[in-house]
């Protein structure tokens, strides 16, 4: 199952806090599509997710400085 979260309005470290909480709520194996801004969020959120044992599958640009990172639980 695919879930989504938009953290474009959040700042570090709430970007990863919100992502992590969403990941806690989804089932093992499910995907989470995280919409985030370039720069700090794009650099740190996938890295933090990988550090804490999640799998970062894909990163793609949606438009301008907005990206989508797909993370598997």
């Amino acid at each position: 199952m695919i879930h989504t979260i938009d953290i474009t309005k959040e700042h570090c470290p709430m970007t990863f806090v919100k992502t992590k909480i969403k990941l806690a709520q989804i089932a093992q194996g499910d995907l989470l599509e995280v919409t985030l801004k370039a720069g700090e969020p794009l650099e740190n959120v996938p890295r933090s997710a990988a550090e804490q044992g999640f799998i970062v599958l894909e990163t793609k640009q949606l438009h301008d400085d907005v990206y989508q990172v797909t993370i598997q639980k």
Partner: protein
Amino acid sequence: MDLTEQQIERYSRHILLQQVGYEGQLKIAQGKVLIIGAGGLGAPAALYLAAAGVGTIGIIDADVVDITNLQRQVIHHTPDIGVPKVTSAANKIAEINPDVRVIQYHSWFNPDNALQIISDYDFIIDGTDNFPTKFLINDACVMVGKAFSHGGILRFEGQTFTHIPGTACYRCIFPKVPPKNLVPTCSQAGVLGSIAGMLGTIQATEALKYILGIGDLLTNKLLVFNALNMQFRTVPVKKNDNCPVCGTNPSITELVMEEQAVCELKTK
């Protein structure tokens, strides 16, 4: 149970930790910790446990705040002189974190109320300044099967260990109350105020680890430190089969308050 948006922000630094996370913060919110003595050790322990979001904090102390307490009992402030310590502590906790439910016991911890009070909590912090009560806390926790953190400070030194059922208890290490006048109480011997913070925060950390079920507790080991040379040591200790309270054939089967030298400063 869910955390509100505001709680998610408040506890964000916990949620970020892999070993805590959202689920861990919920465990903390459901945790119940009893702090025996709102003094040097209990004050920092209460402040950090409240800030951490421990759902229920019980505090037992019959004393009122005295000016001599303020050098180390950081939950009490100058305007609190003369106020019951439990009231003063509860007021500060409410200011730090309104999520916390505080239960005040304005009395001494004694053989009559011990078992009933501790039965309501997950973890007990010994923040007392006298041996008879430390032994009473140990015996009560062993009898009811509760986890607790022992703590003691004197001059520049501190010691602490954690007991959970099945591990060494205080009487495994020290079988009985020291003889009268052999060991001075804090008020006779003096203590560097910050030592209380060092030890009380270690005790609070053990309580949080226990609630979260993470890491290795200070069980079967005694942590001692000397702040003058800032050295910390852990001394291995063993559960004693001949222990008078947790051994295979215990001689202590009911709670009593043992005798100890009365502090001369307090009786003046």
